[in-house]
């Protein structure tokens, strides 16, 4: 049994009178690919925003690698090893693909202006390491030929790949992907899935993925969390989830015909 890497307990967040998150609780195991699914408005993206520090939750606790991170500033969450990607990829369009990658490199002494002048060697040697890592990742993601292109010239799918690469530059333990397959050409989507599997296998990166495509969810994930109306209504293996009556209800409505429920409650 693997250890729990991320533990969300009783997370609440309301916008005006609407509870986007209503006591949501779930765990993500270290080294897993966990899918977060649910109908529109279930609170999946809000949960991601709260976990990654882009939104302050009203109540609840978030524990990452044993450390409480709820309400922590977004950049500190990333530095703790929990990096997110956005639903519509936010690449820095008027910078080169390579600069997008280099920017994200962690522990760069050159980010302090004083050290650029006082410790140029230290800055240069770290820059070299960061550059090497960026080259490796670009090669892995098959973006190397585009390294010097403006990120703004990339297709939607390539942008998602770049965003994944940029997240990996931070050397994270866990990556949150918000609908990585949405709007991506089928060939690139297949590639992206392959990368996720490989990164988990070879580098031990944990993934939590919001996804709507059920075929993808069932093929790539080892655990599935189902949300509806701000709560987690089911958690389990893809097989168990597919047979869960509550899940089918949430997706198809309460009075689904009997023929739509192949199994029974797990």
């Amino acid at each position, binding site marked *: 049994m693997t250890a729990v890497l991320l533990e969300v307990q009783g997370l609440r967040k309301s916008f005006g009178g609407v509870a986007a998150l209503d006591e949501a609780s779930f765990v993500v195991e270290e080294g897993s690919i966990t899918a977060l699914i649910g109908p529109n408005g279930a609170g999946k993206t809000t949960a991601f925003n709260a976990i990654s520090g882009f939104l302050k939750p009203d109540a609840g606790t978030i524990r990452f690698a044993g450390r409480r991170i709820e309400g922590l500033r977004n950049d500190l969450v990333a530095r703790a090893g929990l990096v997110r990607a*956005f639903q519509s990829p936010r*690449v820095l369009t*008027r910078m080169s693909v390579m*600069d997008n990658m280099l*920017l994200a490199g962690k522990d760069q002494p*050159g980010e302090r*202006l004083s050290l650029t002048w006082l410790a140029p060697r230290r*800055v240069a040697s770290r820059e070299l390491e960061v550059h090497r890592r960026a080259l490796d990742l670009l090669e892995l993601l098959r973006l190397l030929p585009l390294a010097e292109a403006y990120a703004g010239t990339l297709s939607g799918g390539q942008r998602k790949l770049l965003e994944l690469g940029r*997240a990996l530059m931070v050397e994270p333990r866990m990556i949150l992907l918000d609908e990585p397959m949405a709007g991506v050409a089928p060939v690139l989507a297949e590639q992206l899935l392959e990368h996720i599997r490989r990164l988990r296998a070879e580098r031990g990166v944990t993934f939590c993925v919001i996804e709507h495509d059920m075929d993808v969810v069932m093929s790539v994930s080892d655990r599935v969390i189902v949300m509806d109306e701000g709560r987690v209504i089911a958690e389990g293996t893809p097989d168990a989830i597919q047979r869960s009556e509550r899940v089918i209800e949430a997706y198809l409505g309460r009075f689904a015909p009997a023929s739509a429920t192949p199994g029974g409650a797990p």
Partner: protein
Amino acid sequence: MDVLNPAFWTFVAVIAGIYAILSLGLYVQFSLAGLPNFGHVAFMAVSSYTMAILVVRYAVPMPLAAGAGLVGAVLLALVLGIPTLRLRADYLAIATVAGGEIVRYLAMNLPDVTGGPVGSIGLLGPGQIALYNGDWLAFLDRFAASLSGIVGARVSRDAASAILVWCFVGVLVLALWRSERSPWGRVLKGIREDEAAVAAVGKNVFAFKLQALTLGAILAGIAGLLLAWQIGVFSPEDYQPTLTFYAYLIVILGGMNRLLAIPVGAVAFSLLYSGTRLLNFFPLSLIDSGSRAFLRLFLVGFLLVLLMAVRPEGMLGNRKELLLEK
């Protein structure tokens, strides 16, 4: 006026250099970090007032007073930046517009502190003429004398000032060139493009923005000191918001997001602005001088509109980059 009067052009060169330094400050804030600062002139005002008050009233040595002036500019940057830089860019824009005007109106309405509407000359109260740039002029004269020795011809005080200011511009351009290519500059450009994306990879966006705002304020403060020393007397009217927009013009005219475009833009702007003063030949000489002054400002505006229509990327800008959507 004589087109070939060297004294006139030397003066224009000094002012162009000072505008270049002012615009380099805006370059760090606006072009690198994407901070819309519409009160840039306030940093000039604060540094020159602080310097002049300390020199005139408290006989503080010039270099120390100049340092205090820059500290004043930094403090203003912190006051404007700390509450607004965590918010959307619009709030900084509003705060800086207001901040700029507040500084000017304070200078106008606190005569006991600032000399009031008459400006620096009234710093010692009515009936006395206050001067703050004696040390600077003495320093320039020594510098001009040693330059004369080197080139073997008389170098005027303004020429010495122009050389000094432009050497300083050169040093600043080199320093910023290196800084913007450092990881620090990369983070600032990233913030300009999309600060959420930069925060998502673990960078403290607020701290970087505050650094950019402060560095820009220091450069504007230096420009303020140099301008005050150069013109000898100043009043609140010298710190109108138009000065901030001249700096924007220089940044845009030269070419957005390109460092070398700043000195080029400063020269182009000064030629356009001062050069049109010389449009006094036939048939323009038929128009009386008052209308001609008006025509001149019209022409400056017209040329700028024309440039933006034909070359929206400015003189040295990168069109390809400009056309990419954010």
